[in-house]
């Protein structure tokens, strides 16, 4: 967050601006933090209505997840990924080698570069990152991590 130079505040003459400069040291500068953590992708947590589920997986639980409103591209990473390295795009089984190209095809003609990732709660972070790596290769800019609320079964 760039600091406002003192001469500018004097010229504007607003007391509010002056105060912000004096208190700026107490704010946490989150911009570089976000840059470091999310070099890969923009990630957010969501819950999906029951109907939008494809293949059944045991979703992780998150209290602060937001509901998904729109009809979106869902990518499911089941526990069996560890054995057969295959995910589900919608309901179609796709091996990880061709995932990037298949997602690129799905995005042909769409303007939102967004995929919702339904990973099993038991998936390793390494395995999830392998999948997200392919999504980035496919030009996906945002990945939603689908979770269920604690009261959901």
């Amino acid at each position, binding site marked *: 967050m760039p600091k406002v130079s003192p001469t500018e505040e004097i010229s504007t003459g607003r007391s509010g601006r002056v105060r912000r400069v004096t208190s700026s040291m107490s704010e946490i500068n989150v911009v570089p933090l976000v840059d470091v953590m999310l070099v890969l992708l923009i990630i957010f947590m969501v819950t999906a209505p029951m109907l939008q589920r494809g293949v059944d997986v045991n979703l992780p639980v998150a209290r602060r997840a937001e509901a998904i409103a729109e009809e979106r591209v869902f990518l499911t990473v089941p526990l069996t990924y560890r054995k057969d390295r295959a995910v589900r795009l919608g309901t179609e089984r*796709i*091996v990880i*080698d*061709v995932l*990037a*190209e*298949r997602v690129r*095809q799905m995005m*042909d*003609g769409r303007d939102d570069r967004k995929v919702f990732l339904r990973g099993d709660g038991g998936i390793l972070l390494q395995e999830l990152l392998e999948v997200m790596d392919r999504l980035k290769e496919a030009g996906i800019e945002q990945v939603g991590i689908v979770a269920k609320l604690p009261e959901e079964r």
Partner: protein
Amino acid sequence: MRHSRVTLAAGLAAAGLAAAAWPGRAPEAAPQQPTEVILSISGEAGARPRYAVPDFIARTADAETQAAAALMGTVLWDDLAFEREFYMIPRDTYRTIPAARSFADIPFDRWRELGADGLVVGTVERAGAGGFRVEVRLFDVRARRSVVAKEYSGSAANPRLYAHTAADDIHQQQRALRGVARTKLTFSSDRDGERVANAVSARDVKEIYIADYDGANQRRVTVTRKLNIMPRWSPDARSIAYTSYRRDFPDVYVSQIYQGALENPTGGRGQNWLPAWSPDGTRLCFTSTRDGNSELYVMNRDGTGLLRLTTHPAIDTTPTWSPGGTQIAFVSDRSGSPQIYIVDADGLNLRRLTSESWCDRPTWSPAPFNEIAYASKTGPGYDIVIYDLATQERRQLTSGRGSNESPAYAPNGRHLAFMSTRTGRTQIFVMGRDGQDVRQITTAGNNYTPDWSR
């Protein structure tokens, strides 16, 4: 399944011009039986069909056949991608799929896994001395059956022509679209760097060149060591009309590039520039100062039947014919600055089209589009603008990157070639008629005023 045999024309009569070694356009395939059902591959709802084109299969083990097989796959992929009718699956994603050795062992499951709706498989084998026999099939990956099957045979001299022919056949059969893969560009270039001998001004020599639509096979046509500019393809794509200073004054010449013959229909009467073919190829419209001022004239190709179109003390120049041959658009500065006007081909009914700061080099689109592309001054340089004659709306295709001038339509109206200074020197580029997919065609020297064969 359709199976037809097409022989590529090769072995043209030898002639003095460099272009004489080119294979001409292949004859069209035999007409279809009207009862035949044409199967077309569709993709998922709302999406373009997705095609994959792996390397062709070399059935003969020699290096030339193998190189040709790989080249044909690449060229065919590029040709199909050019029209943007299909989503072309990038070739670098094919490496995990085992290559087929014949039409019988294609791993359809793996192609389906990659998302392919259509798969083009070709085979190449030697046929006699210096010849190839090429078989191309388009498979519906879901149904696992071939919907297009073509066999071509001809010379091994230009493997790209087989791929171009197959691309045009696939576009025609699957999308009822006239592809441009076998069309050619012509332009003038100073790339050989010769100076005009004994010229008053040290003008660079410009010669006429031709190239495939994708920039391959660039060849020189004229060898005059003089200024040769503004080439225009005849509608049959066998002749090029251009302005040449070969006798040290501008005059209109026509080169029959496959015969090596040169015609001079204006015969040195006055100074003559900028020939434009009528759509039927029988007449030329050009600019001449033979009556003292720059006016437009129409004559038959053999120089007879001269008709003067304009009579105004201002400059009238750069004519272009409407697709039906009934009207001619041109540039005139009679209002003070150069603007585009339209006149009927008999010289009547003259009317003004544009009111911009400066307009130059109009080109009338082929049917079914009814529009005129031209260069409009938008700042220090020009940009390509299209004027729709039906809606009277203009849209700008390029925006401010270098100066962009001299648009020329592809025969199906879906692309334009133009010259641009965006990379420093003046080069030929092509783009879609929406201004997208800009591709650079030339890199050597400076290259000017492209025209696209019919």
